[in-house]
């Protein structure tokens, strides 16, 4: 239970960073984001993504374009804004620090 909880917390912590990273690679559709997250075994259900995307968009990190689709209604394609890129680079920095911290914690400072 405790392990599960911690896992959830850790996944959640990096989810936003991962989503921003995926989008930073280019204009992308929500279900494609999901596909990548699922491949990374970070997220399974699609419904969860929409509130996250909406929030990021409202915070000014993302913007979207309506793109015509062959199979159904127009789709929202997300891109990073300038703010988003700024935040992402900060998060990149943080992630380096965290990876370092984790590596140090696991192997010891001297090795």
């Amino acid at each position, binding site marked *: 239970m405790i392990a599960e909880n911690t896992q959830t917390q850790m996944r959640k912590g990096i989810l936003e960073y991962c989503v921003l990273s995926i989008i930073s690679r280019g204009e992308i559709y929500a279900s494609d984001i999901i596909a990548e997250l699922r491949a990374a075994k970070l997220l399974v259900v699609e*419904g969860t993504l929409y509130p996250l995307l909406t929030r990021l968009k409202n915070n000014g990190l993302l913007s979207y374009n309506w793109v015509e689709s062959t199979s159904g209604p127009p789709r929202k394609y997300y891109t990073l804004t300038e703010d988003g890129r700024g935040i992402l680079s900060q998060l990149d920095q943080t992630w380096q620090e965290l990876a370092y911290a984790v590596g140090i914690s696991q192997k010891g400072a001297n090795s």
Partner: protein
Amino acid sequence: MEKTIIINIGNTIIHIEESAYERLKAYLNEVKHYFANHADDLEIVTDIENRIAELLTEQLEEQKKQVVDSANVNAVIAQMGRVQDFDTVEEGEEEPVINSTYQHQYVEKKLYRDMDDRVVAGVCAGIAHFVNADPKWIRLATLLISFAGGFGILVYAILWIIMPKAKSRIERMEMKGEPANLQGFQKNLDEELQAVKERLGEVNKHAQPIFARLGIFIGEFFEWLGRFISGTGKVIFKVIAGFIIVFGVLFLLTLIIGTAAFQGFWDASIYEYFPFSIINEGNRGAILFGAFIVCFVPVLALVLFSIRVAFNKQAINKTLSFALLIIWLAGVAITGYQAAKISSEFKQHAELTQTTDLKAYPVYTINIDKSKYFSKEDSVAYHIDANNRHQIVVDDFEDGPFVSPNHIRIDINKSETGVTRLTQKYESQGKTFQSALQNAQNISYNYVMKDSELIFSPRFQLRKGTIWRNQEVRLNLEIPVGTRLLLKQDAYRYVNNYWTWDCNNRENDHNDYSVWIMTDDGLKCVAQLKEEALKKEKLEQELSDLDHLQKDKPNDTLYQDSVSNRIKEVKEELGIAPEE
């Protein structure tokens, strides 16, 4: 085969099987609930709907199908994820302020009126939820303070106005202090949807002005009253209805028996009594029938209505009750027509006079024949010999309720010719002058003159077969000036033009008569005249005494003034005009 529904989801038209539709609708409702408190709920839900539409379209294309079935919907739900799964990602992370109030609202109890467990308006049950008590104790307390000058009722009314009622499921949960439980939102999808809407409009609702609240209160009060009348009050109404049925049926039976009696099955003599004596013989059947219907039908209707109230059963159908109404109207028409016909028989007036000159006597005695009048048939029936003066049945002179007005009236006037004369005037109404005259002629009236004693019978009779048409007998007795009249007490009430009760023989009160004398100014009471003469004599005596006194003390002004004042007073009393 399954019924297919066409839905519009995310601006895409999709054919969907009914069971799959229910499934999808349930899921979307869940999602809507979940995001209801989210700042961007509309956008998120739209995104999700759009995605669902896309997924469904893709599936249909892949599977070369035209209609979405449950398997498709399940697949979509699996991909989108259940709301329970959403929690694992967004919990604690999402819009911290809103989320905390969301949690807060669910944990803390709110004061709502419990509409599911209510006696009047759910106020007590709501309070009970709030303080975690059994509603019955709250109710008992309310009832007790209601007896203390109605204070409890006032408090109750105020709380009724202030406390909103718990309408949606969420409100009911808040009322009971249950935590938000999304699994709770399973059934009754429409209700769920409404709950969301109400939740969104909650800000408005709490800002509801007091007038709107009052309006709600009044509306609910009458609704409660209606429920009371159809609930608890119903018992009371049923008891009343029971009484009405019993007494109504008794009344109807009485009416039938009474009508039968009137109709002459037992006795036709009822028509000799006033006011039934007004009715012409030929019209009796019709008017009786009409009156019977007029009385019978409404009572019958009342009884039938009471039966309906008491047993919740329509006693007769609409056609029959309509027929009853028609019958009743017919009864009213018949009665009205007959009544109009009868009243038309009072249209014309006729008089018949018969004058008799009486033998001259200096004193006449006026007396009333106290023996009750009996027709020949009655005399035989009651074994009364009308000619036997020792066997008298005394008439009490009092009119019962069913006696036609048949008293005589006596006027006493001065005879201009010096002859004592009795004029008997018979009057009556009738449809035409002729019938009025005929009715007047059918009056039978008797008086007896024994020497100087005039014995009048107090009532007149109508000849057999004559109906009451406001017949009257007026006697006019003219006596010459100077003739005395001995008026027996029994006759007082029949004298029309004088108030005879004041003139008793004052010196001897035991007499049952008073003495009157005819003067130029009309009939005068002798005792009164005597008294007046005596008084006049006294005053004249005093006046002559005063004349003498006036001659004394000519210089004493005070004395002279008082004497002349008294003279003035006496003269005024004697009717002598002052000499100025």
